[in-house]
């Protein structure tokens, strides 16, 4: 089984349709997962695609499809589990489309909302649907929630800190290494 992630912009590339066609033709165990955040860089979906669903096109290619809210952790888990099980059982390729919100800039760790490619209202609405906050508010009533939550948050923070430290402390590659592995040895 092979999971494959891409965005809404990918759906305008011909090769995506070629891949869907081939996967359906040979009933390959692939789970296609489209994270639709409505933007390709700063160009909105309505300027790039007609008013029809992305998963509908996948269905027309012969794939089994599901679409839902990508901010609902439990719904995403259920849909993904089903799709993986179907793909593994030989039911052919599966297609999941999740609507999501773009939090930060197109490429990088900063915010770019000052460029006004979307309205402040859009941003506020999107942020209200934070998948982590939604999941936390559901879990808040469970037993020992605070203890477990702080333990998980601590572990995640530790993992991120370790990764940063490793990157910062690693030496910069030498210029002489630039051409290494450009060509494979015969």
């Amino acid at each position: 089984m092979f999971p494959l992630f891409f965005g809404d912009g990918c759906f305008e590339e011909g090769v995506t349709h070629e891949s869907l066609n081939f996967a359906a033709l040979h009933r390959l165990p692939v789970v296609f997962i489209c994270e639709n955040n409505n933007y390709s860089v700063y160009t909105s979906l309505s300027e790039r695609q007609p008013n029809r669903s992305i998963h509908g096109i996948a269905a027309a290619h012969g794939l089994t499809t599901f679409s839902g809210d990508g901010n609902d952790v439990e719904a995403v888990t259920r849909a993904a589990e089903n799709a993986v099980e179907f793909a593994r059982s030989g039911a052919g390729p599966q297609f999941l489309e999740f609507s999501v919100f773009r939090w930060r800039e197109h490429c990088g760790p900063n915010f770019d909302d000052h460029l006004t490619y979307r309205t402040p209202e859009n941003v506020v609405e999107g942020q209200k649907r934070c998948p982590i906050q939604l999941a936390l508010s559901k879990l808040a009533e469970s037993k020992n929630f605070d203890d477990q939550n702080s333990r998980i948050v601590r572990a995640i923070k530790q993992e991120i800190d370790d990764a940063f430290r490793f990157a910062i402390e690693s030496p910069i590659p030498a210029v002489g290494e630039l051409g290494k592995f450009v060509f494979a040895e015969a």
Partner: protein
Amino acid sequence: MTVRTYIEATNQALKQAMRSDSNVVVIGEGVPDPKAIFGSTAGLMDEFGPQRVFDMPLSENGMTGICVGAALTGLRPVLVHQRIDFALLSLDQLVNIAAKWHYMFNGQATVPLVVRTIIGRG
């Protein structure tokens, strides 16, 4: 000295490669058809079967990508383009994908892929 046409030599080379390595597969539009890419793939389907010799959709870009994936995971694909015009659609995958994996993975991955194309009649 044995004299062979290019077509005969190509056909013989494919058969030799396929006999000596069961991971070699041949894929291309028209590969198993009655004209067999001007005869260069003649007899392959009979000898090696549909698991190793197969036709493809008219999706040169996508199929090149699929062959790149197959090569990365252990197969030895020979992708055949019957017309140079369509072969150019492979370039996206060859330039942007196939050529980069070895460097990207610090020499740990290779893409042993053969792409055949024919200019004129070959």
